[in-house]
């Protein structure tokens, strides 16, 4: 008992002290000049100019109109700055193109694995052979392809594309990232085969055997190399908040994954606490920072105006790191784990409202008053939706950690819906938007069929709405039934079936949306469609002779 009180008190004091240190350090300017850092992502004179390579010329005109009426004459980048940005974008185009292509392939595979799993839950006698098609294998295959195939590799691609833009220089050491990405992809492939053939480690989120995990740890460390090398050549004074998020995520993942997978170290209940320390940190310290980094770049960049409050964004960064890293225990409420551990995790889950609030204020206040821009910018539509669902998923997650709510929702499909709100509603939506922005710059080619972008958006939006709403309601009723001792357990199973069927319909629409997206992606890759090359570029094609100071690094 004394031990429990001691741990809780120490954590509390530490948290409060840390909070005050951050407030003090920000008020005394240790985080640098906020407004200067916030405009770091713009070239001189670029503020006020919108940017969205995914938009058609007409949309771009509408976007500019929505933001500032007429574009002021004095706004616009100097040719030297345009050239520097072209060079920055080109320096990362190979590795980013490879990563995003792999990610899209994994996305399609993941969608089918997910859809099959979903159908199996209400059609249990469907496709019961071969063994690798059984629900207990195809479901973790879905999860692992989503997490380590689609989300991770897309996130790596987007992060690597952002790095040279954020540091205003060319990407250094892209070959390390290419090798790392190759190792990583081989790892995902081998890991999926291992699960399919029954060689899973048995821990959720950590199913890949340790031999495969080595590839992900080494690959994950190597994809971070270009960031560190490029940081040494940076030509910006302040590090924009997206750099903080990306750098931290690239540091955190290999450490997390390494500790979680050391064979023979973890045991019994301790392994369960480790499992959810990892399971929640892979979301909070790997996907979330990369998703937020992208949102923090693309929202202001598309709109041509800096984020609302830069200092708040850094408070958000540090508080996310501190609180998010300790919330894992809320997955074990009611389980055979020490109660102090669960209490700390519940408290920190509630404290997560601070970073969520910081992000919400920043991202939503930046967009506020400019919602008309969403009509014109395909990128923004996905990313603003993702940012909104981030707020929703986070607040929902905090509430779900409360003992009273958790008692009901734990062990039900409600949690599954919540997980998808985070990794799909937030992260994947942001990735879609980012990919729409990035690919025209990577390929020097416009999206050939702009209407497919809208089709993709509406298919996944409607599909996901059906998915989330039906599964949340079904899960809630499932929880109510399970808590009522007067009702037989089988009732909690039977009543979910219609909701599970609705989920399959939603999932089918999402899958269809992904097929549209992938088809469009590869149509662009093969340079289909009307050639409108050049419109997506910022300026005239680069002259042969390099100009601009220090551009030749």
């Amino acid at each position, binding site marked *: 008992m004394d031990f429990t009180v001691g741990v809780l008190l120490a954590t509390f004091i530490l948290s409060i002290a840390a909070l005050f240190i951050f407030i003090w350090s920000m008020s005394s300017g240790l985080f640098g000049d906020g407004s200067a850092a916030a405009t770091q992502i713009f070239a001189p004179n670029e503020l006020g100019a919108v940017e969205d390579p995914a938009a058609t010329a007409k949309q771009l005109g509408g976007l500019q109109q929505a933001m500032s009426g007429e574009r002021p004459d004095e706004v616009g980048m100097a040719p030297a700055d345009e050239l520097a940005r072209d060079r920055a974008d080109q320096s990362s185009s190979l590795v980013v193109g490879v990563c995003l292509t792999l990610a899209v392939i994994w996305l399609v595979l993941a969608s089918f694995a997910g859809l099959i799993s979903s159908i*199996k*839950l209400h059609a*249990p*006698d469907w496709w*019961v052979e*071969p*063994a690798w098609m*059984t629900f*207990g*294998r195809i*479901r*973790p295959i879905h999860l692992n392809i989503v997490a380590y195939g689609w989300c991770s590799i897309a996130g790596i691609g987007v992060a690597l594309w952002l790095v040279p833009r954020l540091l205003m220089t060319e990407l250094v050491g892209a070959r390390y990232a290419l090798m790392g990405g190759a190792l990583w992809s081989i790892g995902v492939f081998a890991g999926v085969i291992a699960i399919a053939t*029954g060689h*899973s480690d048995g821990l*959720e989120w950590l199913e890949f055997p340790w031999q495969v995990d080595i590839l992900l740890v080494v690959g994950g460390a190597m994809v971070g190399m270009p960031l560190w090398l490029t940081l*040494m*050549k940076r030509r910006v004074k*302040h*590090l924009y908040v997206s750099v903080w998020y990306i*750098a*931290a995520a690239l*540091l955190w993942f290999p*450490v997390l994954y390494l*500790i979680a997978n050391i064979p023979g170290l973890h045991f*019994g*209940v*301790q*392994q369960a*606490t*480790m499992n*959810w*320390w990892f399971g929640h*940190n892979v979301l909070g*310290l790997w996907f979330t920072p990369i998703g937020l980094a992208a949102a923090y770049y693309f929202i202001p960049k598309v709109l041509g105006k800096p984020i609302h409050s830069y200092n708040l964004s850094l408070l958000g960064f*540090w508080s996310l*790191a*501190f609180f998010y*890293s*300790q919330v*894992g225990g809320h*997955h074990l409420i*009611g*389980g*055979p*784990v*020490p109660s102090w551990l669960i209490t*700390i995790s519940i408290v920190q889950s509630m404290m997560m409202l601070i970073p969520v609030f910081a992000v919400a204020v920043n991202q939503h206040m930046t967009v506020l008053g400019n919602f008309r821009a969403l009509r014109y910018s395909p990128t923004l539509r996905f990313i603003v939706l993702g940012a909104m669902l981030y707020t929703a998923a986070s607040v929902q997650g905090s509430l779900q950690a409360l003992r009273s709510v958790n*008692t009901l929702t734990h*062990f*039900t*499909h409600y949690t*599954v819906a919540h997980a998808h709100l985070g990794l799909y509603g937030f992260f994947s939506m942001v990735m879609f938007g980012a990919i729409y922005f990035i690919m025209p710059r990577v390929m020097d080619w416009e999206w050939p069929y702009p209407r497919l972008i809208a089709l993709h958006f509406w298919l996944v939006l409607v599909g996901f709405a059906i998915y989330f709403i039906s599964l949340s309601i079904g899960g809630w009723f499932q929880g109510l039934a399970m*808590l009522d*001792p007067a009702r037989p*357990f*089988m009732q*909690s*199973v*039977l009543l979910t*079936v219609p909701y599970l069927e609705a989920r399959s319909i939603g999932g089918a629409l999402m899958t269809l949306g992904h097929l549209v997206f992938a088809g469009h992606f590869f149509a662009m890759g093969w340079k289909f469609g009307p050639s409108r090359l050049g419109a997506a570029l910022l300026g005239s094609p680069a002259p042969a002779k390099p100009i601009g100071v220090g551009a030749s690094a």
Partner: protein
Amino acid sequence: MNGVKSIWQMDELRLVIGAMVILGGATALLVAMPYVLLKDVPPPPGLKPYTREQLAGRQVYIANGCVYCHSQQPRDISQAPDAQRGWGRASVAGDYAYDTPHLLGTMRTGPDLLNIGVRQPSRDWHLGHLYQPRAYSPGSIMPAYPFLFEVRKGAAREGETVVTLPPQYARAGEVIIARQEALALVSYLLSLDRTYPALPPAAANAARATR
């Protein structure tokens, strides 16, 4: 080369140190402390180690992802009616002394299984239920596992275990033979029994006294 001096300017340094210290703190709290505290928890006297066959069955349980629908952690009666459903008392850390990897689970698409060996001790029931869950549990959404069995025209050979299904599910002229994996899995399920007292009598008394 103005880069050399500014390679590790404050920003980068603060980022790396801050990020790693925070992760270290969380790891100490959620991984290292449970390690230290639980390392020396002795297995309860009533808990038997798994036999070789039961361990093989546990691997079948893992390989086929039973954990994605079944938890193995009954909650306390003050929180949920798990005990009233016959799932057993709230589990304690010692109950998992031989459980690596842990299989606590996060879903109850199906019931908790920590005491399934007590609740349903029939080997025949389990074998038939694995072959066709709906033959025993109408409305169940558990998948059938035909790949754990062999269906053959004619008779079973010496030493083979034949699965007897309820009459309306049995087909004339066919025998269903449980493969090694199915037998091992059932032997693991039957071993799941944590009905012994959670604490040895002395400790239980002490706990009651302090309450």
